[in-house]
């Protein structure tokens, strides 16, 4: 049995399979924490996460293209009860926005005043630290939104 020499992407030979959706497909996959290790050294069963550099690399390729772009808030919420990794930031607002070019993104809002949190408000895409792991982990930068 021999393996094919060249792997062709099925999508390159079948353009009709390419989704018209604007989603960057890496947006679908879960986040930067790839390894879930059990840390028995401290309090028994607390879970310790490690940030995966390869996942950061995969997901950050497109970030540069978004920076500085402007858009409008389509809807938003203020998260009071957060998951484990975001607990220390709560409460924090998150919005779905539509960029002037039509593309939509979902990201937290920072540097805001209460009046900025309303549907239709204008925001700009900025680069911010989004995750902080263990002291040996790489820092993760990503997209956040700032009111204009």
């Amino acid at each position, binding site marked *: 049995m021999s393996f094919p020499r060249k792997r062709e992407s099925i999508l390159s030979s079948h353009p009709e399979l390419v989704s018209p959706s604007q989603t960057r497909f890496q947006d679908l996959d879960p986040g930067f924490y790839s390894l879930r290790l059990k840390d028995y050294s401290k309090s028994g069963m607390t879970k310790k996460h490690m940030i995966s550099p390869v996942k950061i690399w995969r997901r950050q390729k497109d970030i540069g293209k978004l920076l500085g772009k402007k858009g409008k808030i389509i809807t938003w*919420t203020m998260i009071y009860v957060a998951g484990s990794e975001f607990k220390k930031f709560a409460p924090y607002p998150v919005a779905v926005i539509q960029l002037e070019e039509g593309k939509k993104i*979902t990201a937290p809002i920072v540097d805001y005043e209460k009046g900025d949190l309303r549907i239709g408000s204008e925001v700009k895409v900025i680069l911010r630290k989004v995750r902080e792991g263990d002291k040996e982990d790489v820092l993760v930068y990503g997209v956040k939104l700032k009111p204009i």
Partner: protein
Amino acid sequence: MVSLIGYYTTQFGELWDRSLSDLIKEAIFGVLRNTGLEKSQIDAIFFGNMLAGILENNLHSPSKIAEIMGVNIPIFRAESACASGGVAFHLAKNYLEANSNKTVLVIGAEKMTDYSPEETTSALASAASGEEQEAGLTFPGLYAMMANYYLEKYDSTEEDLAYVSYKNHYHGSLNEKAQFRKIVSVEQVLKSPYVAYPLKVLDCCAASDGASAVILTNHNAVKKKSKYSVNVLASEVATDTISLKERKRLDEVLATKFAADKAFLNSKINRKKINVAEVHDCFSIAEVLALEDLGFWKKGEGGKKTKELSTIHGSNGDLIVNTSGGLKAAGHPVGATGIKQIGEIYLQLTVQATNRQVKNARYGLAHNVGGSGGTAVVTILGV
């Protein structure tokens, strides 16, 4: 025609003394006892569960169920977040349509309360897109964004939404298997702290433990012997984008519309004939959207309609909704919910719903949603 001939559910709640396997065992042997069937009469099992793999490193559930039950039959697990139970039911019905003279057991189960709220919240967030997870969105957060959009667009209020919780807690007070049997006032809902604006603690369902099971058959002899039987007229599944931002509209769950339209078409039942419905009220806004997207109410009317309480047990309304207490008061062990909803409709149609019985209920609908609307299952039962 596939018939549903039996139902059993464990208590829903914080069941610290029972493991996932304990709950599965109780539900399987409970439903066998209720139907008078031997385990040797079961030809296959369909199991709905979401979180065991992620929370307690617990997978290969088919083989675990085989050991619990002492059988060697085919067993399948379905996972579609909070719609895992409904999807398992759908697959079971399809299995029967492809195989004559068979009897299958469908069980949904979940163990959620061994973990901190943060751990459970993070595990549930696995059913959202990566971008949404990285933005720090939670499940309540996703529905809160839909709620905020809806309230602004249709000039509805947080008070309108509070009536969903008021009604479902009243229903929960009538269901001995419900997690919360306490009545809450609209004022209490409004005064509860925010989880994700504009949704408050009492707009949200809780994390629960529980297991529910039903038995489906197309075996003529088994059907004939069954004491309480209803027909499965339709079970339809539809999907949509996982990302909320990619949805066509934020004031509807399109997957619900697709599944409902198909279910009504295939069952040849008019919406007006449905007397009882269990709809997916993981958050108060979700029940409002569900009743609109299922086609019972017009889009945008939901806030006002909710406040009229026409769907509460004891009202003169033509459609009574979530007599089990819904996810809000009955509890939401995510894999079990879809089966409990179908089981509640079965109890209503076979006049076994005791103090929450709806009179002359002939047709019922169960509506189960996964994630923020990425999957929807609509099941129609009739007598």
